[in-house]
């Protein structure tokens, strides 16, 4: 290790430029397996979905066959619920992203400090991610948020407040709380691991220069975390766009359309009546939406990727 360190220091400047090219090594074969596998995985279902979306295929009604052209899409777009569903999807994704990234960063910074029983406390914070989403939603719905039986209601009534009927009056907020609770551990774990790779030399240097904790946070820690935060955002977005189980268990998309997102809309119209044509059309729309969202995110992310 000591020899390596000496070598590192000695050749650091000399090879800095070589790092940018690295073309003397052909590393493409290392990429091929993943790429091929993913390519097949993407093409085959996508092709099948596209195909299904332009035919009439209702599982329960095999008599209904034939080429449907863009009928399924037309039916989807004429649905007044579609725009509400799209809006709800964006609200849900955006809110959870903000909550999880902010809390995840703060908790990561907190848990990077040494304190008593830190490893156990860390396991507790990660715990919600271990529980199955359906079970989480059931716990929150019946044991925490239920206005009669729930724990929060009990807390409220013991201080004299009227218990809140979460799912009736704040349905979207309730779903956001549940989903955020599940995903904060994910963000926390990624950000914590990334924070721990922060070179303590840098931190030490900054402290010697007289940087207070806030300055440290904004000028040292946050930039270092930028890449990890980008990853968190990208991955969470992918999952949050298709959130389904939590809505299904708690509000069934209601009241009205308050918590219907695109995935739930596809389910309630497509899957419930086994209209594979409609469901496929919905799937294609969802992919397009996701790509649009990702495109905007990528603008910010790729700036960070090239940065280092």
């Amino acid at each position, binding site marked *: 290790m000591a020899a*390596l*360190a000496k070598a*590192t220091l000695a*050749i650091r400047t000399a*090879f800095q430029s070589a790092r940018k090219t690295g073309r003397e*090594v052909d590393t493409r074969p*290392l*990429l091929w397996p*993943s790429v091929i596998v*993913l390519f097949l*995985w993407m093409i085959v279902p996508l092709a099948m*979905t596209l*195909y299904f979306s332009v035919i009439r295929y209702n599982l329960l009604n095999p008599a209904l066959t034939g080429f449907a052209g863009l009928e399924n899409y037309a039916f989807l777009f004429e649905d007044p619920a579609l725009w509400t569903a799209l809006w709800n999807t964006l609200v849900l994704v955006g809110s959870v992203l903000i909550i999880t990234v902010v809390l995840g960063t703060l908790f990561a910074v*907190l848990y990077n400090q040494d304190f*008593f029983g830190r490893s156990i*406390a*860390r*396991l*507790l*914070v*990660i715990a*919600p*991610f*271990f*529980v*199955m989403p*359906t079970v989480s939603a059931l716990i929150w719905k*019946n*044991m*925490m948020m239920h206005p*009669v*039986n729930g*724990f929060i209601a009990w807390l409220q009534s013991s201080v004299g407040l009227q218990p809140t009927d979460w799912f009736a009056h704040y349905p979207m907020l309730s779903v956001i709380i549940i989903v955020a609770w599940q995903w*904060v*551990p*994910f963000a926390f774990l*990624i950000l*914590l*691991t990334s924070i721990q*790779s922060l*070179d*303590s030399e840098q931190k030490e240097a900054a402290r010697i220069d007289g940087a207070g904790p806030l300055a440290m946070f904004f000028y040292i820690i946050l930039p270092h975390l930028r890449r*990890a935060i980008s*990853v968190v955002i990208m*991955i969470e977005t992918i999952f949050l766009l*298709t959130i*389904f189980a939590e809505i299904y268990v708690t509000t069934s998309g209601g009241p009205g359309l308050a918590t219907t997102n*695109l995935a739930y809309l596809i389910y309630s119209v*497509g*899957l419930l009546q086994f209209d*594979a044509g409609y*469901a*496929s059309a*919905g*799937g294609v729309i*969802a992919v397009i939406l*996701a*790509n649009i969202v990702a495109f905007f995110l990528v603008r910010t992310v*790729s700036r960070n*990727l090239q940065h280092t």
Partner: protein
Amino acid sequence: MRASRGKIGFTVLGWSVALVIFFPIFWMALTAFKTEVEAVATPPSLWFTPTLENFEEVFERSDYLKFAWNSIAVSFGSTLLALVFAVPAAYAMAFFPSKRTPDTLLWMLSTKMMPPVGVLVPMYLLFKNLGLLDTVTGLTIIYTLINLPIVVWMLYTYFKDVPYEILEAGRVDGATPLQQLFLLLIPLALPGIASTGLLALILAWNEAFWSLNLTSSQGAPLTAFIASYSAPQGLFWAKLSAASLMAIAPILVVGWMSQRQLVQGLTFGAVK
């Protein structure tokens, strides 16, 4: 003196956060030991006589070991497989980036964008024709594919955190890229690999859409086990809590054991 007051402050803050976040799970765990009637009683009871009847009933009713084994096989199998594919790919993209690298990364992630609800029927038919319905193999393949993009992304991020100089030093010492990968990079990036693996494991463990739709009895993992306890007609929260505890138990054990890897930060200061 200042250090220890800070430490106490952090302890209080850290533990408050942990307890608040953990509370619903704690409540669920408590409910697992109550009777059904107690589970829905108000005001919620903190003091009660614990009973093991829910666990007994769950054990008697379902073949827990079979489900657990399937979950373990599928989750670990798909995670390992994903890592095998992803580590070389992430290595290549992190240290030998080409113009196409960001696009490739993005494209990989876009394969995940299809909501499973929309693609259920085609996939079901595909699996049926391939004879993969209700098999551990089939589910493992699907989970590998589902998690691969995420694993690649996360590994890419962690690899980027490793200073290239160390690998460069190895190269100067005569190490081939593969040797650099295995002897230098992996040990240094182990915390990152470990947390990536853990997260992939959990995602596979909790995945409830494909596991419920593509398996029936032989290949069914713990998510199907849970689905037999949720929302029947009648009181069920105590039993569901017990079943959920049993379903998280293996993964909590794994998480606890991998704590050590997660704790070791990359400390280049130690290199000095």
